[in-house]
């Protein structure tokens, strides 16, 4: 079953923050995050395995809640290069519908 992502789209100015959410009706073993730039293949960002886990880089990070049914991707001080469509995926290789992020100068 596909996880549910929100929002469907978000438009930011450079330097603004964004949060993308991913939820499942059942507990997951893991959640994966990918980014797809226009015209390119999706590229892996990170995977979260444990309830309560938070990981990532300084400006792109993610969390996985204790019940392992929700994950959020945090983009801080966004840059133009962050533009693209973000997908969350589950251990059985299902993906959400995606969140299109546009960062404007």
């Amino acid at each position, binding site marked *: 079953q*596909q996880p549910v992502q929100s929002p469907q789209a978000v438009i930011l100015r450079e330097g603004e923050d964004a949060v993308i959410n991913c939820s499942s009706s059942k507990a997951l073993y*893991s959640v*994966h995050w990918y980014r797809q730039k226009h015209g390119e293949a999706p590229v892996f960002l990170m995977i979260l*395995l444990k309830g309560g886990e938070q990981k990532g880089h300084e400006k792109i990070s993610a969390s996985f809640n204790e019940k392992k049914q929700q994950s959020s991707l945090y983009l801080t001080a966004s840059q133009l290069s962050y533009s693209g469509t973000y997908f969350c995926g589950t251990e059985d290789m299902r993906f959400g519908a995606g969140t299109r992020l546009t960062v404007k100068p």
Partner: protein
Amino acid sequence: DVKVTQSSRYLVKRTGEKVFLECVQDMDHENMFWYRQDPGLGLRLIYFSYDVKMKEKGDIPEGYSVSREKKERFSLILESASTNQTSMYLCATKLFTGTGGYNEQFFGPGTRLTVL
């Protein structure tokens, strides 16, 4: 670097034609997948394969079949193409390390198929 290649970036076919989409990987990954990507629907799993000659249906297998005769190659077949199969098709691979699927997927560049 993992390399996943797909036979065509763009393909135009006629309704009723038999269409073959090829995917080749060079990383000796056991698992291979076919997705279609449509606006607002994200990536939907068509078929996947855990090993040579093995295949499993995904969420939308109707109208498609697959073939995996060699480990590195996974083919998607549209037996009789229809206009509602116009889409972007993405192949992906993943290393298998036991149950749980904790490895990342590597995607090919995609084939944009138009069925007229």
